């Protein structure tokens, strides 16, 4: 009996060692961090405010991988997906980790909007803004067998049957929803927004013909566009995109120059992050965005516009943007008062 007990104990111990080894084995044996100044002392937790597989998730995983393999961070990253509450869940979580320098979050202007719209207890300005890394674009897409083929057909149908045109987007009070509200206001039609948890679910619904239009980033729909299943009919960007999406008209060309939405991809830290840590992450992220791999495997592949703003610049930029979202959402009536 004793013998058996020791075997069991050993197996439990082996199991726990294995578990720790799994999470820790990726860390290099010697530290190759920056000389002097602050450097992370433990594995960095990388919070993603959405389910795995979306744009924010890819962004976080790419930054994490380049930063660690390129030696810009001495410690590895543990990506932690926290979907729900249109970003509010992850924001609240960040607030509970106040002053913790080893937690990062990918921030997206959609989440800044949604926390404003939902009156979340924690909003983006409560967190620490870290660098902006890219601008992303949005597309209005249709199923190749769908009922409506263009924006013009949608306007016609919506005028004939108010509320009958269904537009799918992920989450509420964020960029997808803003695109929808802009269309509703400036096209002056009664259309319906159907909210899904992720762009993957929106895509399923569009492919299954359960919604008439879907709002996606280029990277979220490029696979389907290449296969010809999905067609982009308009972009919310100011100018036409490049490559595969060069044929897609802007809303300005269609005749509605006011319909304009850009996504901003940035990072954020916990409230009260130390100045040394901010300087470290500024440097780390700048190095990441300067790598060839970032440019080819992230920016070009996902049809993004490369940008880099330091934390200080990002704060100024987001403060202005936040003003803008507030006024637009108030204008279209999503935020009252």
């Amino acid at each position, binding site marked *: 009996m004793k013998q*058996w*007990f020791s075997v*069991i*104990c050993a197996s*439990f111990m082996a*199991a*726990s060692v*294995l*578990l720790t080894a*799994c999470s820790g084995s*990726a860390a290099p044996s010697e530290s190759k961090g920056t000389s002097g100044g602050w450097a992370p002392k433990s594995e960095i*937790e990388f919070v993603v405010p959405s*389910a*795995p*597989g979306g744009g924010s*998730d*890819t962004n976080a*995983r*790419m930054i*994490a*991988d380049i930063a*660690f*393999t390129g030696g810009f961070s001495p410690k590895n*990253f543990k990506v*932690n*997906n926290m979907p*729900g*509450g249109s*970003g509010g*869940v992850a924001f*609240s*979580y960040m607030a*509970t980790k106040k002053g913790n320098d080893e937690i990062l979050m990918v921030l997206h202007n959609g989440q800044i909007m*949604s*926390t404003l719209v*939902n009156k*979340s*207890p*924690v909003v983006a300005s409560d967190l620490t803004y870290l660098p902006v890394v890219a601008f992303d674009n949005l597309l209005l897409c249709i199923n190749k067998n769908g009922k409506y083929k263009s924006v013009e057909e949608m306007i016609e149908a919506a005028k004939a049957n108010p*509320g009958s045109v269904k537009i799918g987007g992920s989450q509420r009070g964020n960029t997808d929803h803003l695109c929808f509200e802009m269309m509703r206001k400036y096209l002056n039609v009664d259309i*319906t*927004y*159907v*909210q899904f*948890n992720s762009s*993957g*679910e929106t*895509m*399923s*619904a569009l*492919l*299954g013909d*359960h919604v008439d239009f879907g709002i996606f980033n280029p990277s979220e729909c*490029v*696979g*389907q566009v290449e*296969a010809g*299943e999905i067609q982009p009919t308009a972009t919310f960007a100011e100018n036409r995109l490049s490559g595969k999406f060069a044929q897609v008209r802007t809303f300005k060309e269609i005749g509605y120059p006011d319909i304009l939405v850009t996504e901003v991809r940035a990072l954020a830290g916990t409230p009260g992050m130390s100045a040394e840590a901010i300087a470290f992450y500024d440097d780390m992220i700048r190095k990441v965005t300067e790598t060839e791999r970032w440019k080819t*495997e992230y920016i070009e*592949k996902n049809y993004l516009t490369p940008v880099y703003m330091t934390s200080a610049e990002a704060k100024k930029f987001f403060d202005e943007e936040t003003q803008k979202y507030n006024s637009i959402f108030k204008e279209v009536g999503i935020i009252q008062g």
Partner: protein
Amino acid sequence: METLGLLMEGVAISLTPENLLACLVGGLLGMCLGSMPGVGSLAGVSLLLPLTFKMNPTAAIIMLAALYYSTMYGGCFSAILVNIPGDSPAIMTALDGYPLARQGKAGKALFSANLASWIGGAIGILALTLIGPLAAKFGLQFGSPDLAWLIILALTSIGWIIGDSPSRGLLATALGIMVASIGLDAALGLPRFSFNNVYLFSGINMVPMVIGMFGFGQVIDMVVNRDNFKKMKTERITIKESLLSQEELKRILPVSFRQSCIGTFVGVLPGAGATMSAFLSYIIEKRINKNRDLMGKGAVEGVAASESSNNAAAIGAFAPLLSLGIPGGGTTAVLLGGLMMWGLQPGPMLFQTNPDFVWGLIGSMYIGNVVCLLISIAFIPFLANIVRIPTGYMIPCITAVCVMGTFSTNNSMFDVYVMIAFAAIAYILKQAKIPSAPLLLAYVLTPMLEMYLRQSFDMSGGSLGIFVSSPISIVLILLIFVFCLAPVMINTLKKKHNIEGNVIDEG
């Protein structure tokens, strides 16, 4: 025939030493991680993903896929042996597996689970090979109203797990709904039952709750009722005893085949996953199996239904991932991220642009599934004897595993408190004879139901008509009626018959 040729090529690719090793490593790791409470396939794949970036994409996906489906094997071990489901798809396995272990039939339970897992995997792989892209396309036909009905169908199972007292069962269900609604609601981000506590904004996590209710709750029970636990069978269990008799094989084989098909199908659906398929399969068996009265008290059928279904669902989830580039659940979503990281473009073109990758993966599944079966059968004699450990040693071990498993998922002490709180709740519920299974079921399913209902109402502009507007919805509604009303009607008919019979007899 073309498929067969491609498949042969795929098997050849997966038999290269590098890929074979990847498959073995993934399988072994998955089994270990899966058997640890709290660490499921999602955590396992996420942990391993960063290690694969330097690997060849084919070897990487083979390893991660092997890890994914082998966690389904591993999940049943702790569910059967100590009543702690290793991950959420194994919750239903514990319902029958643990009573079997208490009866000294741990070996048989493990063997049934492994065999059923293998059958589930095999049928899932066959379906993926032959009709993968087609099935994924069919899955797209399921709109939000259809998915809502599917969840309601799964919820009908509350009717039978409610136990002898409907009021107690409903109480547990309501508690489950309340627990599920804690936190920011998924549609509007408004706080519910959070009392301005920041920790509660993100809601009650599944892992600490399940570990608390099953694992730590068990510990309290062991401490309080030590005498009950002393009467366990203490002879050594050999692999020979673990083998199933011909009669038992006859009991589990049809169950496994049926439920594998259902599991594959549910795995293919958008948003559903292995947990949901295990729930569904179990309730279907509970309705149609001739030994249904034994289920829940220790029937190999229950173990087989849950295990075959969750393995099949894990494989089924690859169909939309590979053929459409759409993840069916959390784990496949991480794999999708992996595909992009490895430089592949997920989408409908993947089969054409990277046939080596896709068919190498599918080929490796055939081998991986056999490897997993062999590994887990080799574990049985060792594992089955865990139940012979005296309670005195068992209590500290389970406690350590519960605390460790809970803390490690989110590195959060709050989760550990939640775990302990739910252990206390589970104990009180047990004392009050309130079943805990309905609570868990309601907790898992109601948030999904809420989301799909909201989407349906968005689509229809508030009209209820959308819920009866598709043929899929109608079929599901009919199934719900059959499941709810058939037993009642059969009972009434029987009673009537008996009464009439009695009258005639008396007359």
